[in-house]
């Protein structure tokens, strides 16, 4: 099977969809001739033409709005926001329009727009190139929210998102573009070619939204996470010798409540982890939900691991990032409790 990093996997997904479905178009800042600042759309304009892969003005609000109009007119736009930190100028069009169109027209109009955007820290991007705003969108009814953690899922989930008739916010943890990452920036970088999820079929396949992945089965406790933290949390648990069940959510909306609750009911202990800021982050919803559903099975309070409730500071990237030390503290708390 071919080896791909996450960038190549995403590129392959878009290439396949541009080829299979004439209604698919890509649009975004620097994505056309140049192939994107992360090179995710490299070669696609040359192959599919300037009318299928559009360079756009630097106006995230305009990009989303135009994508909605195009979606209403039968196209299937995939819009890139260059960094998740820059999605906010498009917020109104996402929340008030994209998310609401099907509902307010009783299904008569809809716009099958996928919004791709790199998120998360760990690349020295400072406070405006490191954010993880996914939690905000999970509170907005009418949009799906997904984040893959590896090349295989990235390709399959992106294809599923493009084919989905509902709008999808597709967050790409940029720290994982080139390889898995266990949270230690001082270790040599590991490429995806060393990882089983770096094996990615060349052709079409989908990984459905709404289905979590148990990346490691276990009995001591459940770790519910997604994105970069999948690797960090698993590594921390392994280092502690814990038999943790690690769940990579892959999509937050829809959420695979069954997989989560089955696991927590089995283990009785749970840690929830994400890179986004803690207060009112998506972890809060997970904790609320798990305690509602699994209260009587819990042997300890659920612990949250998250970014601090501050912007992501350039100089303190690794003091900010929820690395193994932070996970370990939570794991200890949840294992020692009771």
């Amino acid at each position, binding site marked *: 099977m071919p080896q791909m990093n996450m960038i190549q996997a995403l590129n392959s997904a878009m290439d396949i969809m541009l080829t299979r479905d004439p209604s698919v*178009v890509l649009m975004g800042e620097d994505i056309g001739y140049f192939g994107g600042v992360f090179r995710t759309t490299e070669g696609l304009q040359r192959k599919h033409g300037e009318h299928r892969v559009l360079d756009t003005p630097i*106006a995230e609000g305009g990009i989303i709005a135009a994508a909605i109009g*195009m979606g*209403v*007119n039968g196209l299937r736009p995939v819009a890139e926001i260059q960094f998740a930190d820059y999605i906010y100028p498009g917020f109104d069009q996402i929340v008030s329009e994209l998310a609401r169109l099907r509902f*307010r027209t*009783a299904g*008569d109009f*809809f716009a099958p727009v996928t919004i791709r955007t790199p998120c998360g820290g760990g690349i020295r991007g400072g406070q405006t190139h490191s954010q993880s705003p996914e939690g905000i969108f999970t509170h907005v009814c009418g949009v799906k929210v997904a984040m893959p953690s590896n090349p295989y899922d990235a390709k399959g989930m992106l294809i599923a998102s493009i084919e989905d008739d509902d709008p999808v916010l597709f967050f790409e943890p940029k720290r994982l573009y080139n390889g898995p990452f266990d949270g230690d920036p001082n270790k040599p970088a590991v490429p995806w070619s060393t990882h089983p999820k770096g094996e990615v079929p060349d052709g079409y396949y989908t990984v459905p939204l709404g289905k979590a992945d148990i990346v490691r089965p276990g009995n001591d406790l459940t770790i519910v996470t997604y994105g970069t933290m999948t690797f960090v949390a698993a590594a921390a648990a392994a280092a502690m010798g814990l038999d943790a069940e690690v769940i990579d959510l892959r999509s937050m909306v829809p959420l695979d409540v069954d997989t989560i609750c089955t696991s927590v009911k089995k283990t009785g202990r749970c840690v929830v982890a994400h890179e986004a800021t803690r207060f009112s982050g998506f972890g809060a919803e997970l904790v609320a939900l798990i305690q509602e559903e699994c209260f009587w099975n819990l042997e300890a309070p659920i612990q949250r691991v998250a970014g601090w409730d501050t912007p992501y500071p350039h100089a303190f990237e690794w003091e900010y990032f929820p690395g193994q030390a932070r996970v370990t503290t939570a794991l200890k708390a949840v294992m020692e409790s009771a």
Partner: protein
Amino acid sequence: MNRRSRLHVPRVPARPGEAPDFSYVDLSPAGAVARPDVNARARDISFLAVELVRVLDDNGEALGPWHPHLDVHELQLGLRHMLLTRVFDDRMQRTQRQGRISFYMRSLGEEAVSVAQAMALRPGDMLFPSYRNQGVNIVRGRPLVDLMCQLLSNTRDMCKGRQLPVMYHWVAGNIFSISGNLATQFPQAVGWAMAAAIKGEDHIAASWIGEGSSAEADFHHALLFASVYQAPVILNVVNNQWAISTFQGFAGGEQRSFAARGPGYGIAGIRVDGNDFLAVYAVTQWAAERARTGAGPTLIELVTYRASAHSTSDDPARYRPKDDFDRWPLGDPIARLKQHLIRLGEWSEQRHLALSAELEELVAANWKEAVTYGMLNEGPRLNPDLMFDDVFKELPPHLQRQREQMRAEIAKKD
């Protein structure tokens, strides 16, 4: 240096108790403005954004190069559509006062905008209206009962009870959904037009925005994307002088016409007498031909007056003189087209009265039918289960659970 800058506050010409003053409105005589070729470059025709295209003069005579030379039946149809719009508006306003519907917004005084523009477009052209464009539904032959059912949020409401009154849509009629959020439809229309161009289809898009709403970011997005991709779209600013209580000066109209924004982006901008059916028709036709032949987008400013309150929640007596519409220099669009037809010998006061009566009856008959499908608090009701549909294409598990919970709540109450 002694002169210092002071914060400038746009001047409102007259407040309650003062005499209406429309001296600020720049007028051109009917027939006076040149009509450039539809393929003219935007930069060469910027005079159109300053002048005011008018065809009908004060006596109801049609003059000059913009005279669209419509046949009499078209004119009579236009008159009928405008009158129906007004009769419909009046009746719906009254039903709101009676508590039958929760809210309403009339288009009194600006009926020519929607009617003449929709008539000048083709049925396959996609319309992205604002909340004061009910006329486009009328032109496109929407059964009134459908509109009324939306106003009533009843069992035949095309929105299934989800939207405030007047937020219609119509897939079959190529009329897009109205949003409660101002201006959002403007760049969406551009995206729609871009898609038409990508697909090589010759349908165009048209959208409407209030002059007040043109302050929103989406107005800029629309002009910018239309300019960059030369999208086949007509972007209309309905300058009815007021945005709720706020005068058009607060949207930038004091320094420059709204049409002038177009040339700033390299888009043809054209200012038209919005109460002159013939001028509105002609300008729209010109812009449509431009768009359809690849000559690019057009920004049209329709100069008109919001003769009524902003909505049934508003009382304009608090912020403007009561008799203002009577002094409005561009008059009443219905009266002006009527005068023109009478002058042509193709209409009369009697026919007008008869038409009014006919349309009143039409509206009444439709209302009678509409209420049989239910009213907000009376008669047949939509199933509340519907609240959970169409958030997503498929009902996800968490909404299934919430629907169950709601059913239990309702069962408990009953």
